[in-house]
């Protein structure tokens, strides 16, 4: 039964890779940097594992490792999403839809 579960995870992994390929091949070069920093922030999902490790009932080495992992993942998540937003804010609308007239 254990290995069946593992197989299900592989299943999910493979399908997600395909979804990823489908989504990202369409991203125009202009957005490659924000795509990278945005997806980078998503990879900070390791925060889930970090929280589980840092929140164990007993204080062990796992707690310390977990806490450092929380710091790392949080930098990744917060820094990643904020910096992506900062970049995307700058992407100005095409000139013909306004502003250009001056």
């Amino acid at each position, binding site marked *: 039964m254990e290995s069946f579960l593992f197989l299900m995870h592989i299943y999910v992994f493979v399908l997600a890779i395909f979804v990823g390929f489908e989504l990202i091949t369409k991203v125009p070069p202009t957005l490659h940097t*924000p*795509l990278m920093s945005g997806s980078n922030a998503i990879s900070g999902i390791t925060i889930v594992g970090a929280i589980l490790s840092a929140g164990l009932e007993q204080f062990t080495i796992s707690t310390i490792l977990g806490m450092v992992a929380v710091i790392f993942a*949080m930098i990744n998540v*917060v820094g990643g999403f904020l910096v992506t937003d900062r970049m995307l804010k700058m992407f100005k609308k095409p000139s013909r839809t306004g502003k250009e007239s001056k």
Partner: protein
Amino acid sequence: MRIIIEITYLISSILFIFGIKFLGSPKTARKGNLYAAIGMLMAIVATLVDQNVLTFEWIIIGGIVGSAIGVLLAVKTSMTGMPQMVGMLNGFGGGASTLVALAEYFRLNPNYPVESGLPFNLPIDTGIAIVLSLLIGGVTFTGSMIAFGKLQGLVTGKVVKYPLQHPLNLLMILVVLAGGVFILLNPSNITIVLVITGISLVLGVLLVLPIGGADMPVAISLLNSYSGLAGSTTGFVLGNNELIIAGALVGASGIILTTIMCKAMNRSLLNVVMGGWASAGTSGPAVESTTHKGTVKSVDAEELAMLLDSVSSVIIVPGYGMAVGQAQHAVRDLMNVLEKKGVKVRFAIHPVAGRMPGHMNVLLAEAQVPYDKLLAMEDINDDFPNTDVVIVIGANDVVNPAARHDQSSPIFGMPILNVDYAKTVVINKRSMNVGYAGIENELFFYPNALMYFGDSKDAMSKLVSEIKAL
């Protein structure tokens, strides 16, 4: 409760997918980023209410410290420093994966911290996932830090060669794999786990160190992919589908960008990772000058302003030199004065211009150049013959016509911007120095080429004031 948590993870995964989907268009990209951030928040909250999470002080401390550093980095970084920033953030993601894998290993080990004498039955799938997390996470962590150092100028941006480079790296990977097998058989052996971790960290340094500055777009994309894969392997360690999905999305994204970058340089990934353009087979005489030595014509700002006074179309080709000189605002001013004169101004962006994918686009967006004026290579390459003046700012190898016809050139076959087909090409550079590929650019000697020497920012500002003075 369990079911609610799982459903939250599912919704969070869906938000990630939509987030990335919306990142695919400039109009929706900001919304996409927000969706992904909400997804992340949901995942964090769901995890906090997990029944296995019982003490919160360490999580809170870590969360506050990490968020503070994250905010600081995000706010302080300049747009020119963006490649470093992305590189560093990648590293933290990878580092977190390594730490979680280690923490999970120690949690599962019944003989730590006190010898309990209990047998340690590490399931084979968890064991494999832990070893892979340590390897990929470790390589991502130190590799990204080296990439950061290179981009920040703390570590040399040159191609670094060291003795026995390839055998050494191969040996280290083999040791990690052997150690992995050993751990599956003797799970209690902490030393081996630490050795695997240590070697992975060293491997990250050794793998990225040889990669030269202009190959950084590939390195950063690849590390981006690794950071995703590290997230996935952590998902396998914990048996958490959301980590697996999110990691796979990022892994796929990184791989696609890596492929695009490699194609744009007409090189294989292996060639880039092995380090150095010069080693790309053509180990013959590195200097292949003299063949097309002609006269180089140089112009000053005033002459150039006069030339630009009577044209109708201009294409600007920015390169890493524009980023180094922080010239994006001056370039925008140039665009504005030219447009005021009724000149059609567009930008041609080579995929590997700069130090990471889309680097030029971000800089020009910062200077408020509308993104529809930035054209990708394949969209603009046919327009060069109908263009009066092309202004190349701090780009070199990506406009070298040798790539089209000179089979002996190391860059032969690389897709380039056909700037030489324009009526006049103006090249702004600080000197006649060679570009990253270490070869002379025959374009500079072409009859329709004009060199405009100077620092990119100064040169463009001067040009703008000369045009205004006309």
